[in-house]
């Protein structure tokens, strides 16, 4: 095995390293960009398939890989390389966990305004590769909007950079956006540079419990477009009947702004305590992801419930994660996803199924740009060795 030739730590893989049931042969633990490149060059020479992994929180998302010889574990790439506080910019290796990054930034009164699920274990690279985002995407955008520079390693070991460490930059193609959400199918994200925000002086949540039947689209619209400028308007609806709305405001005047939002809601409480469900995914053995026009939030909620899913997501951006509790057979889940997709697409939305124990479930629906995506994949990974078959269209 010449994988270790460049001095890269490599160990034999075991059952615990399985990727959606596919057990790799080796686990490589690179510590530098050069080591990632060395591993990938060796894999190219020997035609080995590679799946990169960060914290492993979403490793079971997506189709099982067609083949997986090497699990590229990014855990040793865990250094924050540069925090230029005066420039509101941070550069970090991909294996840094989001919580560790947040802790370091908080020391200087700043934050990366993404609140991905599983923040304790999820890494910078994993968050980018899966394009997960949290409630505050409404105010700050998602990972691709806050990423300003990236270092990637291509399947043949080529190290490439795009963007840089300034926020305003239109020189060249933005490879960061292409790699964000590419789920390890184009190459390995090695380092990332982000735009930061100052930590707000205060945070207040306006929280109200309601019956789903009483949830008015008009109220949600007025909350989202209020000039009190909420950072997020999220709804948690575990059972289809009872829902909690939580609206977040951030800033020195958060208290006053929260009051203005409470007036819109009519009923509820103002708190500085984050709701325990806020931005979290609790179970993801089965997980669906919805995008819908925000004005159709109540209908999206109803459709989710009728298909047997709980709903947690944003009435402002029209994005939600749906969990499916309890036992479900493949036929039942296939049927539930089909029904959900029919309803949501009729609203002008999209359904994907990141996690499912059954691979027969249609995870993506119709993807009209698939031919163009395949052409991108062929250029970046002509040998189909990077997370092969895992993503949309089994790309």
């Amino acid at each position, binding site marked *: 095995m010449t994988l270790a030739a460049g001095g890269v730590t490599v160990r034999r893989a075991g059952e615990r390293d399985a990727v959606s049931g596919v057990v790799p042969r080796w686990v490589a633990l690179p510590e530098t960009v050069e080591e990632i490149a060395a591993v990938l060059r060796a894999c190219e020479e020997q035609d080995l398939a590679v799946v990169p992994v960060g914290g492993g929180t979403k490793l079971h998302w997506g189709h099982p890989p067609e083949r997986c010889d090497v699990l590229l574990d990014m855990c040793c790439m865990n250094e924050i390389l540069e925090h230029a506080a005066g420039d509101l910019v941070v550069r970090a290796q991909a294996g840094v966990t989001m919580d560790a990054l947040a802790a370091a930034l908080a020391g200087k009164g700043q934050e990366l305004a993404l609140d991905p699920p599983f923040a304790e274990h999820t890494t910078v690279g994993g968050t980018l590769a899966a394009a997960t985002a949290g409630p505050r995407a409404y105010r700050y955008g998602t990972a691709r909007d806050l990423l300003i520079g990236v270092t990637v390693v291509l399947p043949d070991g080529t190290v490439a950079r795009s963007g840089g460490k300034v926020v305003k930059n239109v020189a060249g*193609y933005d490879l960061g956006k*292409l790699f964000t959400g590419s789920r390890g199918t184009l190459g390995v994200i090695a380092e990332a540079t982000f735009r930061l925000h100052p930590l707000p002086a205060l945070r207040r949540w306006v929280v109200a419990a309601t019956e789903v039947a009483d949830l008015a689209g008009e109220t949600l619209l007025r909350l989202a*477009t209020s000039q009190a*400028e909420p950072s997020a308007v999220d709804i948690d609806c575990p059972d289809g009947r009872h829902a909690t709305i939580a609206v977040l405001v951030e800033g020195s*005047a958060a208290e006053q702004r929260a009051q203005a939002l409470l007036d819109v809601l009519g009923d509820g409480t103002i708190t500085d305590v984050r709701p325990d469900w806020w931005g979290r995914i609790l179970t993801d053995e089965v997980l669906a992801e919805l995008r819908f*026009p925000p004005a159709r939030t109540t209908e999206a909620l109803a459709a989710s419930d009728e298909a047997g899913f709980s709903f947690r997501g944003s009435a402002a951006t029209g994005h939600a994660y749906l969990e499916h509790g309890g036992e479900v057979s493949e036929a039942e889940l296939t049927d539930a996803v089909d029904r959900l997709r029919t309803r949501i697409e009729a609203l002008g939305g999209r359904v994907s199924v990141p996690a499912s124990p059954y691979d027969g479930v249609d995870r993506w629906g119709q993807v009209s740009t698939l031919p163009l995506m395949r052409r991108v994949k062929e250029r970046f990974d002509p040998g189909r060795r990077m997370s092969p078959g895992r993503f949309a269209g089994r790309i």
Partner: protein
Amino acid sequence: METLIAALRSLLPHDSVITDPVRLRTYECDGLTYHRATPGVVVLPATAEQIARVVRLCNDFGVPFVARGSGTGLSGGALPREDGVLIVTSKMRAILEIDLANRRAVVEPGVTNLAITEAVRDQGYYYAPDPSSQQICSIGGNVAENSGGAHCLKYGFTVNHVEACEIVTPDGDLVTLDRADPGYDLLGAFVGSEGTLGIATKITVRLCRAPESVTTVLAAFESIEQGGEAVSAIIGAGIVPAAIEMMDALAIEAAEAAVACDYPEGAGAVLIVELDGPADEVERQFARLREICSDAFELRVAAGAAERAAIWKGRKSAFAAVGRISPAYIVQDGVVPRTSLPGVLAAIDRLSAEHRIKVANVFHAGDGNLHPLVLFDDAETGAGERAEVVSGAILDLCIEHGGSITGEHGVGVDKSRYMPRMFSDDDLDTMQLVRCAFDPRGLSNPGKVFPTPRLCGEVPGVRKGVHPLVESGKAEQF
């Protein structure tokens, strides 16, 4: 070209195909006037389907095509090809849909940036990216260039405000790239690709709710250093203003001569700071800003829209205004990390003295985006060359400080030769992979962005002899 023109005439109405040499010349450049080329033929399609047919025809003939919106670009991104077709979107000016409940508008590419805001302003909404040319520039051009503007410090760029684009791909297919669709973020790759990955034919933009309160402040400082310190202090205080703009004494002099903006006399630098958001928030930030700007010898606060416009007038006219104090000038668009601004400005001063070339500085200080205006007299022998040297040296400074050669104007033809200074061969070759996926034949706006594009079938490695793209005239070797 003759057979192509005949085929174009059979596709499009008679008045949508321009071949008259005099009319062709009106399209020979965009806002960057020192690069000129008369297009082989100009077409004015009225629909996406017509653009798709024109592009397919270009493929049949192996002829390059260039898209053009309003032609206000400052990097030569819409510079035509003498052997190609220029596709002008000026007939596609319909706002197709306004959906305030979902805070979106769907528009054709020729719609001007400001027209979107004007269509929704009365309902309390606006379209956030605001390039200085917003009265004229088209949204299709904004998408191609990923345009910014003074307010992108807080609100981001075009790419952050585009939800979907219907595009004609370089092989003439009509597809929609949507942020909500699963799969690769092709939309993110497309926006800012300067017309090299296809042509946007329908754009869905995000609309923002107008802020409750806006406070615009003009602070006059004795020196540029003092102004710079104030900028650092504002950011350090955790304030993210909608905009922080700075002008130096020479830029102020030019603006004064052109539009009599009546900025405080004797200022070494003026800072324009705009705070917006909930009234309670803006009030607190303004109190803090006042403390921070205690070194300013004059602080003006705009009371109402008219006074705000008066403060912005000098800044917005700055580029055109330098024409009043200099026969010719080069506009640069470099970016440096904000904390490097003082050092970089001092270095620009030294370059200016060394080469006897005046430089007026106008910049988006909040995000470190410099627009040095390099002034020269084109009648003076050697002045243009010296100005080019200073201009290039400024970009080198930006790269040395970890910045960028362009913050919002794009690379185009103007800065493609600087790309290898900012990016390695591997970086550029990797970007080319995207190009080859979208445009394997290299027909969509060739010669822009990248200095020497590798042919898509070519294997990486040492190149020998004349590059085939250079030989066929599709690329220029720098």
